[in-house]
């Protein structure tokens, strides 16, 4: 069987020239033997890919971190606004902020259970663990009313941000 394959290759070489021969030879070698080298290469690839992806993520992370610090400290200082979640309700339920500027919203969850601050109008979503405070950047917004909910207790946890 091997000999037959060789003969076929040789004919192609005779007819079509040198490049064609090299191409054919390579396919035959892969088909015929060296399965262990292919296996090792694939295994390496398998192991390396997730790590490479993770490393890329980490690199991005470290690259972006100073950027964030710079954005937060040097360029501007967003004004802080605060909401409190207590007994699955937002306090205050209506928060007025200036329009046209970025603000930093602190949401303190005083409940023991987690909550998700969720707002399609604001394009924001963030899980807040029990007894912890989350920070959410909002805006710059056009004047108007922007509703938000605590997705995990949407029947009680509702509020509006009013941009003026």
């Amino acid at each position, binding site marked *: 069987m091997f000999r037959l394959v060789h003969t076929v290759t040789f004919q192609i070489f005779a007819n079509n020239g040198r490049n064609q021969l090299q191409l054919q030879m390579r396919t035959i070698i892969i088909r015929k033997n060296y399965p262990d080298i292919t296996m090792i290469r694939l295994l390496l690839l398998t192991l390396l890919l997730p790590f490479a992806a993770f490393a890329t993520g980490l690199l991005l992370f470290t690259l972006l971190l100073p950027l964030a610090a710079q954005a937060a400290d040097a360029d501007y200082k967003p004004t802080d606004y605060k909401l409190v979640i207590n007994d699955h309700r937002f306090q205050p339920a209506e928060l007025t902020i200036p329009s046209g500027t970025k603000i930093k919203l602190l949401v303190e969850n005083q409940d023991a*259970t987690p909550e998700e601050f969720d707002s399609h109008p604001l394009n924001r979503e963030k899980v807040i663990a029990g007894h912890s405070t989350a920070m959410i950047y909002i805006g710059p917004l056009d004047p108007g009313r922007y509703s938000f909910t605590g997705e995990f207790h949407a029947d009680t946890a509702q509020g509006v941000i009013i941009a003026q």
Partner: protein
Amino acid sequence: MFGTAIIVFREVLEASLIIGILAAATRSVPNSRRWLSAGLLAGLVGSGLVAAFTDVIGSLASGVGQEIFNAIVLGIAVLMLAWHNIWMSSHGAALAKSAKSAGRNITDGTSECSILLVIVGLAVLREGSETVLFLYGIAASNDGGQSSMLLGGMFGTLAGIAVGYMLYAGLLRVPLRWFFAATGILVLLLAAGMASQAAHFLIQADLLPSLASPLWDTSAVLPESGLPGMLLHSLIGYDSRPAGMQIVFYLTALVAIFTGMKLVARPRQTAIRK
């Protein structure tokens, strides 16, 4: 109970659609089912862990750890989906032809299958951790009515899985000559949608400028809270009020992966033709 069902449904739906598409796309890849299941299992374990460490993750990177975590998870998923799609575009035709004599492709399929594991694991991890937190909140509260809410959660889970399965079953009925194109496009859009979501989280963390926010507002026509909007959000990354940067990410991912697929697919075809 109804509200609970909807929340759980939304989270499960996204993971379930991803698994449905991938299960269909890799139906002729040897052992892909086993790797998908392993990914599902790893994702479930991982979502428990992420849920347990929510406060730790959240407090990292001066308060925006959660956004960065989500963006990294999404970013890795985009890379993996891109790799998957490019791999399929170079091997898909061969797999379809040699579906019965698959022996030759087994070693080749291993690297692809581990990618499957990662993608499914990450999808389940991200969506699952929120569900775990939500259900934990219900179980831990003393409001009463937990059993009805947990029942709602179960309904939501089943409904989400059912929709994913329907997509899977529907894809399997697509004729073979369009099948790889169909799954390829679905995976491509899935990846682009995830890239847009990653941008969304980085904007929320104030690490990226939003570039016109929102770029458009279709929330009155097609709200994301409705079922069509929900499905489109999961499948193609629909956002009723996207920031400009999200669209930049979306299009970049779309073009990059598509170019990769074309580049890999072409030389092989010409080689066969000669």
